[in-house]
């Protein structure tokens, strides 16, 4: 589903965020990317939806060669990837419903279908009764669940989450991770950057460790 072939990323200021990364993530896998801050976790994640372009090497996502992808096709790529952020990135002047509906509006889904799918997504994250409220009235955990509902509502084959539990307490973090597990079980490829080693170990999934831009460890998932 996602393949990195000797990928390097050097920023214009000369900083080398990634060096010679080789990585293959299969369809339906759940993978954690871990490492100290500055190890290149975020950069690696940002290459997947083409928020950055690699300096060297090839990135293939859902059959698309990102190095050769034209600018005009980037929206098509991003519609196949649900993105979740540490700071949620919700629109504060719109209701929970409108936030979750946004990807479907962008994709031109009919209003009737939007209503059905938004409610299904909100039901999945347990916020069906909050669709009319504004994000500021929600707790951090609830806002992140809105973020997940928004990433998932268009049923993308890939979910990418950058420190999704970075601002949440352990109990809430565990709940959020269970949501990601559920998506993985129905065949979604899930890639999560996190430095919460304790939480990651308890989940028993594949863990990739980065250190100063190099891939130093790749522990496969425990046989379930």
């Amino acid at each position, binding site marked *: 589903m996602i393949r990195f072939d000797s990928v390097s990323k050097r920023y214009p200021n000369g900083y080398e965020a990634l060096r010679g990364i080789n990585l293959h993530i299969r369809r339906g896998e759940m993978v954690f990317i871990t490492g100290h801050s500055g190890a290149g976790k975020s950069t690696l994640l940002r290459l997947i*939806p083409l*928020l950055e372009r690699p300096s060297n090497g090839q990135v293939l996502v859902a059959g698309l060669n990102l190095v050769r992808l034209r600018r005009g096709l980037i929206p098509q790529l991003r519609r196949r990837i649900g993105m979740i952020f540490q700071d949620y990135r919700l629109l504060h002047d719109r209701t929970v419903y409108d936030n979750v509906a946004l990807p479907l509006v962008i994709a031109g889904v009919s209003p009737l279908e939007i209503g059905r799918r938004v409610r299904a997504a909100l039901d999945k994250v347990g916020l069906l009764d909050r669709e009319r409220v504004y994000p500021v009235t929600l707790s951090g955990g609830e806002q992140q669940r809105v973020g997940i509902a928004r990433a998932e509502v268009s049923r993308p084959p890939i979910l990418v989450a950058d420190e999704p539990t970075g601002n949440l307490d352990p109990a809430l973090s565990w709940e959020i991770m269970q949501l990601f597990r559920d998506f993985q079980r129905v065949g979604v490829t899930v890639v999560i950057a996190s430095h919460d080693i304790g939480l990651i170990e308890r989940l028993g999934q594949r863990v990739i460790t980065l250190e100063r831009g190099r891939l130093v460890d790749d522990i496969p998932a425990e046989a379930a």
Partner: protein
Amino acid sequence: MAEVAARRPPSRLRRAANAYVSAHGRALVGALGRLYRTPLASLMTAAVLGVALALPAGFLLLLANLQGVTAGWEADARLSVFLKTDVAPDRYRALAATLEQDPDIAAATLITPEQALEELRAVSGMQDALALLDSNPLPAVLLVQPAAGADPEAAAALAERLEALPDADLVQLDQAWLQRLASVVELARRGTLVIAAMLGIAVILVVGNTIRMAIESRREELVIIKLLGGTDAFIRRPFLYEGCWYGLLGGVLALLLVETALLLLRGPATALAASYGSALLVQGLGMDGVAWLLAAGVVLGLAGSRLAVGRHLRAIEPR
């Protein structure tokens, strides 16, 4: 990809068309909604556009009215043919009769030297001075009215032809001042067009700047839309419609300004016309004028927003 699109069943095509229409409808209504949510700021911008559009529209209307009035006067153009003083009375009477038959001439009126002297005596109050003259120094004059519908060039050609008559001494075209007036009106019209072009640029810049600020204030939202796979067209659309709405509102305000100005000017203008013995009808913008004004507003608004959108949206990329 192309073959896949070609093999799509019609229902799929219709769905795509529906999505397209609803996306535009959403952008159209959404843009109006945003203007409505900041009524004062929107109204101020629209007012600036209204004034900028009303000025050239008002001037052009004024000129149209002026031309309407002078067009009536042109029909009154007359030629005075002064004959040589040695032309005998039966000759100039015969000449008057001949000219009367000319297809280019509507009427030829003869003023004999005696009549001219009588008139001069009556109006000038120079009876004593005129009494000293032992003979009448005045020539016979033929007042020639060109055929109906003759334009200034035709009148000038007629003047030339009359001047070539052996008995004619001098032909005076009373229309000369009208031609000068026409030149002045034409000059004013060109000047108005130049000013209109400059104000049009001002409208584009005002809308462009307003849209630029709208883009800045929604930067975060636009970044998120790009993250979620929004195309450039999707992001551009609401701003383009916003520009159109500004232009349309500006056009409507300009319309109100022009019509109000007309209402204020109609009374005095009619009074002035009445004093010249003519029933002047101040002409308004009319359906065509209204359509042109609103269309100009929309087109300029769209141009302004295109300018802003093209320059600023590319700079917004997710970080």
